[in-house]
């Protein structure tokens, strides 16, 4: 396969995953900002959404005030934001168009259909319509993933697509933890106020894990368990451990197809072993923030290794 084709497939995976993540952040934030609060909770919630999305710095640079209107526009529709939902779907489609021949008709239709629909709908002003829009974005991801999984050959094209999605997903969860780690400090060290409970549930909602949490722990929402779910729990598909395991699987399938392992396989396996050997107590002892920072750096390094080994 052409390296450029692999690169485009990888980025289709990343962009579609990112669009989905943004939709979830916006949904959770709409909910959090609706909770009555005396201390400017809504404004803080919207500012927090930009941070969760990992574009806080870029948002500030545009000198927009952080409120519902501006943040919704920036994260969902803005063309100046290369990571807005709209930008992600456009880029996914541009990449798809440049590798049409590597996609099944069904996968192309899912991506191109989303792009066509995006052009037809404006920017919904009312909340109800905006929530419909976010719901639609999530169905796009489902149909793209469904089309890929149901119609693609299990060959390198499929593995590059899934590899991109998994690396993006790991990055999203880690960045979310990176900006919210202070909410998850162990009991006794907490500095939070009365909104903490809602903050934790919002965090769980952002990764669609509130129900999952209850099934896994059968307990009220406690910050260290939230951290455990998002970092180490292998049942939780967005946990760092699950994402890393998926990354290893996809890379090993590539290595098997090509009959050769390389630096990215070695880096990925080593990272998975580290995660598997950890406990949440140990993570907190060494510092959750530092732990997440290390994970993000490692994830970037892995992305680089993949790019060098296959995509250029």
């Amino acid at each position: 396969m052409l390296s450029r084709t692999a690169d485009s497939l990888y980025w289709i995976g990343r962009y579609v995953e990112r669009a989905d993540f943004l939709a979830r952040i916006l949904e959770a934030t709409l909910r959090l900002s609706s909770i009555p609060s005396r201390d400017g909770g809504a404004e803080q919630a919207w500012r927090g959404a930009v941070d969760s999305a990992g574009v806080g710095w870029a948002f500030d640079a545009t000198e927009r005030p952080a409120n519902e209107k501006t943040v919704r526009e920036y994260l969902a529709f803005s063309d100046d934001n290369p990571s807005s939902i709209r930008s992600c779907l456009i880029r996914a489609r541009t990449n798809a168009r440049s590798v049409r021949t590597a996609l099944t008709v069904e996968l192309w239709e899912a991506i191109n259909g989303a792009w066509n629909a995006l052009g037809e709908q404006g920017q919904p002003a009312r909340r109800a319509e905006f929530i419909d829009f976010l719901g639609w974005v999530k169905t796009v991801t489902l149909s793209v993933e469904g089309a890929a999984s149901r119609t693609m050959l299990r060959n390198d094209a499929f593995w590059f697509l899934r590899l991109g999605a998994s690396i993006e997903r790991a990055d999203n969860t880690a960045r979310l933890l990176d900006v919210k780690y202070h909410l998850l400090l162990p009991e006794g060290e907490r500095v939070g106020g009365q909104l903490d409970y809602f903050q934790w549930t919002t965090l769980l909602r952002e990764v669609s894990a509130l129900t999952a949490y209850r099934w896994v722990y059968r307990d009220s929402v406690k910050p260290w368990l939230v951290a455990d779910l998002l970092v180490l729990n292998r049942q939780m598909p967005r946990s760092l451990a699950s994402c890393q395991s998926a990354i290893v699987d996809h890379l090993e399938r590539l290595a098997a197809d090509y009959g050769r392992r390389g630096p990215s396989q070695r880096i990925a396996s080593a990272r998975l072993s580290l995660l598997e050997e950890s406990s949440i107590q140990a993570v907190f002892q060494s510092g959750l923030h530092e732990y997440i920072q290390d994970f993000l750096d490692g994830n970037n390094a892995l992305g680089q290794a993949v790019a060098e080994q296959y995509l250029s």
Partner: protein
Amino acid sequence: MAFDEMAGVGGPDRVRESYRALAQWLEEAPADLLAARSRQAELFFRRMGITFAVYGEADAAERLIPFDVVPRIISSSEWLELEAGLVQRVTALNLFLKDIYGPQECLKAGIIPPELVLTNPHYRPEMAGKRPPRDVWVHIAGVDLIRTGEDGFYVLEDNARTPSGVSYMLENREMMMRLFPDLFSEYPVRPVETYTDMLLASLKASAPESAGSEPNVVVLTPGPFNSAYYEHSFLADKLGVELVEGSDLYVDDGRVLMRTTEGPQRVDVIYRRVDDDYLDPLAFNPDSALGVPGLMTAYAAGRVTLANAVGTGVADDKAVYTYMPEIIRFFTGEDPILHNVPTWRCREPDALKEVLARLPELVVKEVGGSGGYGMLVGPAATKAEVEQFRAKLQADPAAFIAQPTLQLSTAPTLSGDGLASRHVDLRPFVLTGPQGVEVAPGGLTRVALKEGSLVVNSSQGGGTKDTWVLDA
């Protein structure tokens, strides 16, 4: 009154033989059936992303080429004549190119003024004395034909560089079979779907001998922003070969290689949809980011096949076109089966004088232009446009040719108010390999959707139709 493909020259009651079943079907079809099918087709094309880009239109980066659901029908006897004429013409084009980059017999014999060839902007001195692998020059030609009467087919242009539109020939047929399966039981329509197999076989057969028995073929595209990008990806898909951009290829030790996830892989045949100028920044336009540095060196050494060959643009230059009847006679020893449209060469003072005098009634084209850009259709132009063009023509006469405004034939076409007559042309696709020349039984019928308009180019609001060549 123009000749009508369905009604001929007769009144409204007369229907030409090959159109009888269609005419009856159209008469019996429920009033809104065609419109409904037309909407269905548009929806499908948009979903599949079968689009093209229009240069200079920011808001319409991707548009659909309108598809007309009424087919254009060519009888088997009409086709036999066309086919013979096309084979003859493209055979002559190949021999002409081989000659002008070789012994130049036709120049010595005075068939065509040497300066017209040797100083032509599309003449590539780099190719002088060179022979492409297997001596094939124009692997793919898309010859534009127009019709003015029952027996009057004329060649309007020989597209011998990188003709486009063949994906529409194939997709339009797929669409018609999906929309009107019953009509195909009324007509013995020759299939066009074998085109891509014919093309692949022809490209493989044109590979350099060093390629061995399984040559690696690729399609080279300028990229997703090119107007015909959909077609490039469509063809690569149907051929089952990689669609590459310049940056995917590089030249090492005289070989052309492509970058893959499993390391470099050799490339033997490049079906390139990139103009000569952009092929190799070291040989041609140094600013080109689309090309492959060193490609011309590998090509000159016979290590890779380019389809079409470099330098074929001379053969579809509109000034050289005017000499095609003589070129055909010289190289084949036969009289041309297909005729040229009578053409004034504005480089000749007498011709220029006449053209200037009759400007409002003529069609004037740039000799190197294509796609309907930069031309004047006298009868359709405003007085100011005619005068503007007159100035351009006087400033550089050799850059133009002029032709009478021919009444292109019309064909029934779905318009806003039901069926109406619209002007059409025809672009069949002609393939040349080491074994010979063959024509796909069909082509792209382009239709000027605006009432009375004679400009069929998709960049100028033209649409397409499926073209049915009937079996005997």
